């Protein structure tokens, strides 16, 4: 019989990923719901340095797995998680829905025939067993999932779904020796930093952001002109960057930049999860979209269901006055 919650913390080049404290918060909640004791595993050469940061109130045990390659390697991480699950038989394994996790957690779940939900926004442990919620149909609906017959359920949580856990804990700390360092199956050739651009969208107080609603490449210049007129900096969602219409240093989102301006005016951005991850903390979000069901309206403070070109023309005229 499986028991307990195992949180897979994430250490990046910048240190402990802030989302790890959110995973711990979810773990504390599951523990209170009766899922069993809460263990946090850190798989990284620098794991020891982050023990205090994950030893938060409610955590029973911190495991450090330090005998791994210096960089994150998906196959090594997979071997570590598989071994930990086999040894400890947790009822729930929590990890972030991050690029690193996506490289190995689905493999762990598939190979173990575990329960699995990715990009989950809620997880619970109750009389009906483990349940998770996630978006469906491009986040327009919410799906509730169950995991019948599964001893262990792997849940990848969307970042921001839980408030980070706080308060010092009194967990037992254990260094775990796993023979996994030789399980790497990729060799790193190079690490490339983001291309240095001439614009720093993180420094702007006012961002005008455009997305897929913009239909022609030539129109990007018009929006840049509008941004200039309004005193804003132009940024974009991924599709325009992928199309090569706008440079990558202006991309807001998970694989671009996270921004927190005073005002974020989104024109023709439907609001894919990856985009929302990069802008939902802006102080004031105004969204204009012709689709009343666009997910961006769920994070916007002000919304208008309107044609972006008509609104842009009016903005151009009124900012002239």
């Amino acid at each position, binding site marked *: 019989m499986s028991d307990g919650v195992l949180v897979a913390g994430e250490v990046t080049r910048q240190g402990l990923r802030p989302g790890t404290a959110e995973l711990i918060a979810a773990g504390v909640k599951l523990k209170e719901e009766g899922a069993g004791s809460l263990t946090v595993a850190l798989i990284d050469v620098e794991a020891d340095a982050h023990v205090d940061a994950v030893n938060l109130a409610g955590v029973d045990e911190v495991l450090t797995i330090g005998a791994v390659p210096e960089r994150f390697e*998906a196959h090594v991480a*997979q071997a570590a998680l598989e071994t930990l699950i086999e040894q400890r038989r947790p009822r729930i394994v929590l990890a972030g829905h*991050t*690029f690193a996790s*996506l*490289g*190995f*957690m*689905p*493999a762990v*779940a*598939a*190979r173990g*025939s*575990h329960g*699995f939900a*990715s*990009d989950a926004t809620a997880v619970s442990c109750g009389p009906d067993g483990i349940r998770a919620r996630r978006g*469906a*149909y491009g*986040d327009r*609906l*919410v*799906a*509730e*999932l169950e*995991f019948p017959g599964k001893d262990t359920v792997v849940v990848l949580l969307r970042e921001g779904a839980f408030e980070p856990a706080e308060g010092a804990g009194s967990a037992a700390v254990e260094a775990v020796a796993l023979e996994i360092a030789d399980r790497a*199956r*990729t060799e*790193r*050739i190079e*690490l*490339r930093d983001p*291309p240095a651009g001439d614009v720093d969208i993180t420094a702007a107080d006012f961002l005008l952001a455009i997305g897929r609603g913009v239909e022609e490449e030539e129109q990007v210049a018009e929006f840049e002109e509008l941004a200039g007129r309004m*005193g804003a900096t132009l940024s974009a969602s*991924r599709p325009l960057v992928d199309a090569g219409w706008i440079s990558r*240093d202006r*991309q807001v989102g998970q*694989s*671009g*930049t996270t921004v927190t301006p*005073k005002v974020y*005016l989104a024109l023709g951005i439907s609001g894919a*999860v990856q985009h929302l991850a990069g802008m939902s903390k802006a102080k*004031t*979000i105004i969204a*204009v979209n012709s*689709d009343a069901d666009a997910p961006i*309206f*769920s994070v916007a403070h*002000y*919304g*208008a*269901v*309107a044609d972006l070109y008509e*609104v842009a*023309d*009016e903005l151009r*005229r*009124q900012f002239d006055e």
Partner: protein
Amino acid sequence: MKVLVPVKQAAVLEGDFELEDGVLDRDSLDWQINEWDEFSVEAGLRLVEAAGGEVVVATVGDEDAEDALRAALAKGADRAVRIWDPVLEDADPLAVAHVLAALVERERPDLVLAGVQSSDAANAATGVALAGLLDWPRVAVVRSIEVEGGSLTVERELEGGAAEVLRLELPALLTVQTGANEPRYANLRAIKQARQKPLEVVDPGALGVDEVALETAAGSRLVSLAAPARGAGATLLQGGAEQVAGQIVEIVRERMAS
């Protein structure tokens, strides 16, 4: 070089959908090829054009999903395989990966190129789950691919715009990110010719996957669907474009002054 590209006919939920007791009326759905798969198909075509070989596209889906396969055939894929059994309706990514693994065992490609995720479910899991079942090396979220002999050099996207260049041995699986290339369009002649290309329909049983195995493999079961709680929700700006713009100007000036 033989490249297998699993694709998905993804659902688009129309504005006026019907949801009753947590069940969606499937007539509320439109279908289109998953956006990510446009890029994985293109990547496969380019590799085979350069090195010779074969591109096989495959999908787990009902007859409607053949549109995605025909589109890939029109662009230049050599043949297509559709795997279907009604029990696969609402199949989760692990069940789909299980079925695809059986196809990979049969086809024995050198490389599997999957999309990072699908535009409807966005699990971002099927490809890496498949690699796990095959015990193949893989890299997720790839934006460039080079083949040299028996090895691949790929660029993996990291958060925040950084990237990692990795080398790995074939056979391997990659999940391909949007923007990795410029997907081609098929011309009318190619679309017509694609109707003559082989499209095989198999049931999972023919690949050695029975219903019990599928049930064991599935990672979850759908309990219900609901419309999301929109939280406090946005304050709606009313009126025509002129009024909307006027209110935006006002909000911007007020917030920027504070």
